[in-house]
């Protein structure tokens, strides 16, 4: 996990994997949003959830908010004053706890490992 000591190649490799992940998420999110708009009934049950970020640098925060806004039904809305919480508007919130965990594990962890 120590990003400082990992080699340049490992970071490049992770960066490549991350960009693939990013593209995949963007494509998936676009189709999901498009599907929800085109079907006559709205399946969307939106909500705003808080995700905890423990001490990210400015650069990590920028990448994370960018990623969050561009991916499946999520939109970063606000950041708490002490930068410990990110408030996300999500289009499908059947279970806030599971979603929070998923975002913390999927996005925050990935971003922290690479940038």
């Amino acid at each position, binding site marked *: 996990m120590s990003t400082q000591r990992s080699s340049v190649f490992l970071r490049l490799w992770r960066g490549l994997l991350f960009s693939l992940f990013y593209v995949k998420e963007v*494509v998936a999110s676009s189709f999901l949003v498009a599907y929800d708009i085109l079907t006559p009934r709205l399946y969307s049950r*939106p909500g705003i*959830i808080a995700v905890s970020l423990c001490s990210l640098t400015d650069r990590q925060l920028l990448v994370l908010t960018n990623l*969050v806004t561009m991916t499946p039904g999520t*939109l970063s809305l606000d950041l708490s004053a002490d930068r410990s919480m990110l408030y996300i508007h999500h289009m499908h919130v059947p279970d806030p706890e599971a979603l929070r965990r998923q975002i913390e594990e999927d996005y925050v962890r990935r971003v922290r490992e690479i940038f």
Partner: protein
Amino acid sequence: MITDILIAFLLLGGSAFALVAALGIVRLPDFYMRMHAATKASAFGLVLIFAGAALYFGDLLVLLEILLIVFFVYVTAPIAAHLIGRAAYHMNVPLWEETQVDELRPRIEESEAEIESGNASAAAAPDDPAD
């Protein structure tokens, strides 16, 4: 020949996404959901269209210009969305009645209570980090 078909496909697909985004902006029930459509679907459509244009010109300089456009849109669109969304939320633009949870409202009420109690330094803080 094959590239022509691919270009046509990319152009049509991109404009289809843009059209869906515009439909979304008309149909979706609240401001925040409309913003989902406006940022994601339209940015994706734009990328498809410019990928088609890059294929069509097949020129390195044009490719660089197009990469610049796409990169620029992908960096600025989320920032703009974040700023408007935050401003709208602070202005109390209503959420759809089907909205399930809202974990931001208590936080804002808390900080507004601090403003009213005359705590000026705490009141100024929430606006600074993202500006």
